[in-house]
C-alpha cells in the first residue's frame, strides 16, 4: 500500500495501482484515451503525461504505465506536463473533421472532454486532412473513421477482450483503419461494446442514430432482463421511447461490457402492438376500475367456489417485489399460494440453485479468475452470453475450459468440448468409472480455483444436485469447488427464493377444472413453458383469464381482463441473478406512447391533454399494492419483504448500479423431481436450446434484433442422419410428444450422437427449453398435420 504525493496531496493506494488510478482517487482526472480499466494500459495515445519528481523513473512519464511507489512525488499541473498534453491534444486533433454538431458522440465524447482538458482550443494546422472511406458494418454499429485518434480501444475490446475474429486494424502511420477485412455485418455477439469503448464518434449505435443528444437522454442504472446473469446496463430513453442501452459496470458480474442481446434487445418497450390501456372484454377501462373489477370478481369466486377458484401466477420476468406482493395478495384473498413460474422444471432447477447450491455459488468474476472451468450442459452464447466472455478471460490467464454438452459449442476461446447427450451427462455425473468423469475429477483435484458451470435447462433439478455432489467431493480445506448455475430468466433465482417447498404444477391445477380465474403476471405460458398447447386447451376450463404484462403476448390478446404493466426500464424493482445477487434497477423513463409513434415522424398531435397518451401502465408491484389496499411506497414494500423473507439482503444496503450483495445461504431443499424417463427404442433425445436471439420473450419482441434471428432448423450428427438415410439440407419431420414439425435438416459433427437439436426462437416458438427430458423421431419428408 504505497503512499505518494500528487499535486501536493497525499494518497495511499493498493499495490499495483498506477499513478493514473492514484490521481483519480484524489479526484484528479488526468486526461487519457487508450487506458481503460478492463483493457489495461498500452501507452499508445501519450495523453496522460505527468512529471515524476521522486521515484524510480523521473521526468515526464505516462501516468497509465507508471506504478505508484512509496514516497513518489508527482505533479500533473506543472508547465512541462501541461504543455506536453496540450501538444498531444493538438496532434490527435490534426485530422479530426470538426463535425461534432452532426456527431452522435457529441456531449458524451471523451475526445471533446480531453481535448478541452488538455488545453488545445485553436487549430493551427492548415494542411490536408487524412480521410477514410467508411464501411457498412451491419445494422448495429455505425462507423465514421475520420474521427479516429488511434487509441486501439476498439480492437482491444472486440478482439482481445471479447474474442471477435472479424475486426482488426489495418494500415500504418496516420492511416490506420479499424474495421473488417471486407464490408459486412460485424459477426461477434459482443460487437456493440466498441460503441462504449471508442472514446470518439467513430463507432456509434446505429439503432440510436440521430435520436437524442446525450444531455436530453434520460438514463438510469438497470439490470439486463434478457438472461439470468443480470448484467449491469444503463438504458436511455426520451419522449416515451427506450432508445438505447449501454453497458453498466458491475465488477462481480459483467465487468464493463454486455452482449448484443442485452444492448440491442430493448425495443420491446416501444413495440407498436404494446397495449397501454386496461381492457375488459375488449372495452377500455381506467386502471382503478379495472382493479376494482378484478378484486370484486376474485373475492366473489373464492366465496362461491373456495380457495382453488382463483390461481395467481408469477414469473421470472416479474420483479422480486411483484412476486412477493402476489403472495401477499393471495393470502389476503384467501386463495392458495401463487405459483411463481409456469415452467415447473425451470422453477425446480432454480430452487436447487437458490437452496441446495446457496453455500457454493460463484459469481461471474470468480469464473474470470478460475484456472479450471468445467461446463455441464451449458451453451454460453445461447443461455448466458457474457459467460462466454468471462470464460475467455479465464482462458487468457491460462485456465482450461472443458464443456460437456450435446450442442455444437462455439466459444471465443480455446475449449475442450466433448459432445455429450443429456442422458450421458446425467449418467456420467454419478459414475465412478466413466473415463471422462475420472479425468475431470483428476483435473479438479489439482485445480486451484475450480468452478463448475451447470445449466439448469439441460440438467434439471436432478442434474444440478449431481453437480453439487461433485463440487462437494472436490472441495477441501484449502479451497472450495464453486458452482455457477445458469437459469431460465432474469429473476428465476428470485422467484425460487420466494417459492414454497411443495411442488405444484400449473397444468394439473388447471386441468382439475377447479380454477375459475387465472391471473398471469408478466408471463405467457403459451410461449414460456413447455406444453403450450396443453396449456391452451386447459385454459378452456377457466372462465376468466387476467393478464398483467408489458409485452404484446398472444395470451394478453386472449385475456378477459388485460392490465398493462411497465417494462423493467420503466419502473424500479429488483431481480436476483443466477448466483443469488440481489440487484436493483431504477426507472429510466415513464411509460407513455412514444412521440415517434404519435407523431409518425412529424410534430406530435397538437392536442392539450393533462396526461401523456398511453401513460396508463403501472409497475406490477404498484398495481398489487392497490389491490391490497396498501398505500405503502416501494421502500415500505421492500422493508416488509426483507423482514418476511430473512434471506433477502436489507434493501437499504443496496443501490441500483452498485455491485449489490448475494442473498444469504439457505438449508437444502432436496427436491425430488421425479424419475428420469426411459428412452424408447429407436428414438433420439430431443434437445431444445434457446436461440441466441429471440428466445427470451423481451428479445423476441425487439425489432432491432431481427437481423440476428436465425431460421428454424433441426441439427443432427451426420452419423445419425446417415443411419436414418436423411440428407443434409432436406426437409424432415420431427415427431415429439407435443406434436410434429417440419424442419430443414442441418448436419453438424459437433452435435452429440443420438440427439436431435432445435432452437427455440421467433422462427420456432413451439418447443421451449428446459422441459423434462424427452424423445423424438426424425423422418424424411413433410408431414401434414
Amino acid at each position, binding site marked *: 500500500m504505497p503512499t505518494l504525493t500528487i499535486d501536493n496531496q497525499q494518497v495511499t493506494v493498493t499495490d499495483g495501482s498506477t499513478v493514473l488510478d492514484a490521481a483519480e482517487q484524489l479526484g484528479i482526472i488526468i486526461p487519457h484515451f487508450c487506458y481503460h480499466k478492463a483493457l489495461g494500459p498500452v501507452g499508445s495515445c501519450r495523453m496522460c503525461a505527468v512529471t515524476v519528481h521522486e521515484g524510480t523513473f523521473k521526468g515526464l512519464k505516462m501516468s497509465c504505465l507508471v506504478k505508484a511507489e512509496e514516497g513518489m512525488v508527482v505533479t500533473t499541473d506543472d508547465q512541462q506536463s501541461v504543455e506536453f498534453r496540450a501538444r498531444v491534444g493538438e496532434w490527435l486533433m490534426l485530422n479530426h473533421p470538426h463535425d461534432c454538431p452532426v456527431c452522435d458522440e457529441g456531449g458524451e465524447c471523451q475526445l471533446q472532454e480531453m481535448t478541452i482538458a488538455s488545453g488545445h482550443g485553436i487549430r493551427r494546422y492548415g494542411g490536408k486532412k487524412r480521410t477514410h472511406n467508411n464501411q457498412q458494418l451491419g445494422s448495429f454499429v455505425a462507423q465514421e473513421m475520420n474521427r479516429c485518434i488511434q487509441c486501439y480501444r476498439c480492437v482491444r475490446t472486440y478482439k482481445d477482450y471479447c474474442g471477435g475474429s472479424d475486426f482488426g486494424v*489495418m494500415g*500504418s502511420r496516420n492511416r490506420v483503419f479499424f474495421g*473488417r477485412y471486407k464490408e459486412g455485418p460485424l459477426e461477434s455477439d459482443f460487437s456493440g461494446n466498441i460503441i462504449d469503448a471508442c472514446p470518439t464518434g467513430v463507432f456509434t449505435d446505429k439503432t440510436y442514430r440521430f435520436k437524442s443528444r446525450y444531455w436530453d437522454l434520460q438514463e438510469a442504472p438497470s439490470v439486463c432482463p434478457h438472461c439470468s446473469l443480470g448484467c449491469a446496463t444503463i438504458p436511455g430513453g426520451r419522449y416515451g421511447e427506450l432508445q438505447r442501452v449501454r453497458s453498466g459496470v458491475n465488477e462481480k458480474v459483467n465487468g464493463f461490457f454486455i452482449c448484443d442481446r442485452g444492448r440491442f434487445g430493448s425495443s420491446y418497450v416501444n413495440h407498436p402492438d404494446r397495449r397501454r390501456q386496461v381492457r375488459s372484454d375488449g372495452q377500455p377501462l381506467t386502471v382503478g376500475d379495472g382493479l376494482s373489477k378484478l378484486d370484486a370478481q376474485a373475492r366473489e369466486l373464492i366465496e362461491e367456489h373456495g380457495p382453488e377458484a382463483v390461481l395467481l401466477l408469477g414469473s421470472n420476468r416479474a420483479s422480486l417485489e411483484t412476486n412477493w406482493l402476489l403472495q401477499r395478495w393471495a393470502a389476503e384473498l384467501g386463495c392458495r399460494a401463487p405459483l411463481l413460474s409456469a415452467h415447473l422444471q425451470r422453477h425446480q432447477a432454480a430452487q436447487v440453485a437458490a437452496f441446495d447450491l446457496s453455500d457454493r455459488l460463484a459469481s461471474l468474476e470468480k469464473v474470470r479468475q478460475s484456472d479450471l472451468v468445467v461446463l455441464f450442459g451449458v451453451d454460453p452464447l445461447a443461455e448466458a452470453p457474457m459467460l462466454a466472455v468471462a470464460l475467455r478471460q479465464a482462458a487468457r490467464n491460462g485456465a482450461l475450459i472443458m464443456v460437456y454438452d450435446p450442442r455444437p459449442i462455439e466459444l471465443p476461446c480455446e475449449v475442450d468440448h466433448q459432445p455429450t447427450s443429456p442422458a450421458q451427462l446425467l449418467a456420467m455425473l454419478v459414475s465412478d468409472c466413466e473415463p471422462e468423469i475420472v479425468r475431470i475429477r483428476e483435473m479438479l483435484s489439482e485445480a486451484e480455483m475450480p468452478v463448475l458451470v451447470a445449466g439448469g435447462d439441460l440438467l434439471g433439478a436432478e442434474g444440478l444436485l449431481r453437480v453439487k455432489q461433485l463440487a462437494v467431493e472436490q472441495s477441501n480445506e484449502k479451497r472450495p469447488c464453486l458452482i455457477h448455475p445458469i437459469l431460465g430468466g432474469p429473476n428465476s433465482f428470485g422467484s425460487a427464493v420466494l417459492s414454497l417447498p411443495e411442488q405444484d404444477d400449473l397444468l394439473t391445477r388447471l386441468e382439475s377444472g377447479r380454477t375459475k380465474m387465472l391471473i398471469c403476471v408478466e408471463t405467457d405460458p403459451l410461449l414460456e413453458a413447455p406444453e403450450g398447447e396443453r396449456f391452451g386447451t386447459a385454459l378452456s376450463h377457466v372462465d376468466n383469464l387476467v393478464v398483467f404484462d408489458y409485452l404484446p403476448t398472444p395470451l394478453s390478446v386472449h385475456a378477459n381482463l388485460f392490465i398493462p404493466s411497465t417494462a423493467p426500464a420503466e419502473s424500479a424493482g429488483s431481480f436476483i441473478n443466477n448466483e443469488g445477487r440481489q440487484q436493483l434497477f431504477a426507472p429510466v423513463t415513464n411509460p407513455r406512447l412514444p412521440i415517434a409513434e404519435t407523431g409518425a415522424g412529424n410534430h406530435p398531435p397538437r392536442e392539450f391533454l393533462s396526461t401523456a397518451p398511453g401513460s396508463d401502465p403501472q409497475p406490477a408491484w404498484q398495481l398489487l399494492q392497490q389491490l391490497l389496499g396498501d398505500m405503502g411506497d416501494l421502500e415500505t414494500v421492500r422493508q416488509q419483504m426483507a423482514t418476511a423473507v430473512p434471506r433477502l439482503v436489507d434493501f437499504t444496503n443496496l443501490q441500483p448500479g452498485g455491485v449489490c450483495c448475494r442473498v444469504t445461504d439457505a438449508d437444502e431443499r432436496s427436491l425430488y423431481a421425479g424419475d428420469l424417463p426411459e428412452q424408447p427404442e429407436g428414438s433420439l433425445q430431443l434437445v431444445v436450446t434457446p436461440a441466441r436471439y429471440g428466445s427470451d420473450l423481451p428479445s423476441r419482441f425487439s425489432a432491432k434484433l431481427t437481423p440476428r434471428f436465425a431460421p428454424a432448423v433441426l441439427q443432427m450428427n451426420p452419423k445419425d442422419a446417415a443411419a436414418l438415410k436423411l440428407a443434409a439440407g432436406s426437409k424432415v419431420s420431427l415427431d415429439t410428444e407435443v406434436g410434429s414439425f417440419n424442419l430443414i435438416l442441418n448436419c453438424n459433427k459437433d452435435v452429440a450422437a443420438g440427439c436431435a437439436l432445435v432452437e427455440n426462437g421467433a422462427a420456432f416458438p413451439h418447443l421451449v427449453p428446459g422441459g423434462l427430458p424427452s424423445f423424438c423421431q426424425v423422418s424424411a419428408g413433410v408431414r401434414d398435420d
Partner: protein
Amino acid sequence: MAQEEKIDQIGLLEEEELAAFIDHACELEHPREMVIDVLRAIQKNHGWVPDEGVELTATILGITPIEVEEVATFYDKIFRRQVGRFPIHICDSICCWSNGGEELAEQFQKTLGITFGETTKDGLFTLLPSCCLGVCGQAPAVMIHQKLYGPLQLDDVDELINRLRREASA
C-alpha cells in the same frame, strides 16, 4: 495435390511453393509468422497481392483474412493494389533529403509524367515514396524490386528509366 490446387484458385503460387508453405505451416507452433513470406511469394509471382492472395495466405496459415490484411497493409513494400512492373521506391528520409532527394523525386515525376502513387500508362512504372532504405551512404537512393540504386544524379534518371524500358521489351 488436388486439394491444394483448389485453395489457390487463380494460380498465385507455384504448385511446389504452395505445398512447401503448407508443410512448413504444419510444423510451426505459430504459422502466423509466415505471413510475410507467403505474401512476398505471391507478390513475386503476380506483381502485387490481390484479395485472393490475402485469402489464400489465410487458408494456408489457418488464420483469418483480417489477420493477414493487418500485416499486408502495414508494410508499404507489400502492394495491395496493382502496381507497374517496376515500382520505384524513392527515399524521402533525412540523408537522401539533404542530398537532393526532393529534386530527384521531381525529376522522376517529370520524366515519367506521373506523380507519387501513380502508374505510367504503359503499366511499367509506379512511383512510391519510402522511408529510409538503409543505404544512407549512397544518398539519394531509390529501390526497384530488391535492387538499390544510388547515389543518383538528376541525369541518371533518364538513363535508368531507358534501361528498364529496354529490359521490359527484351
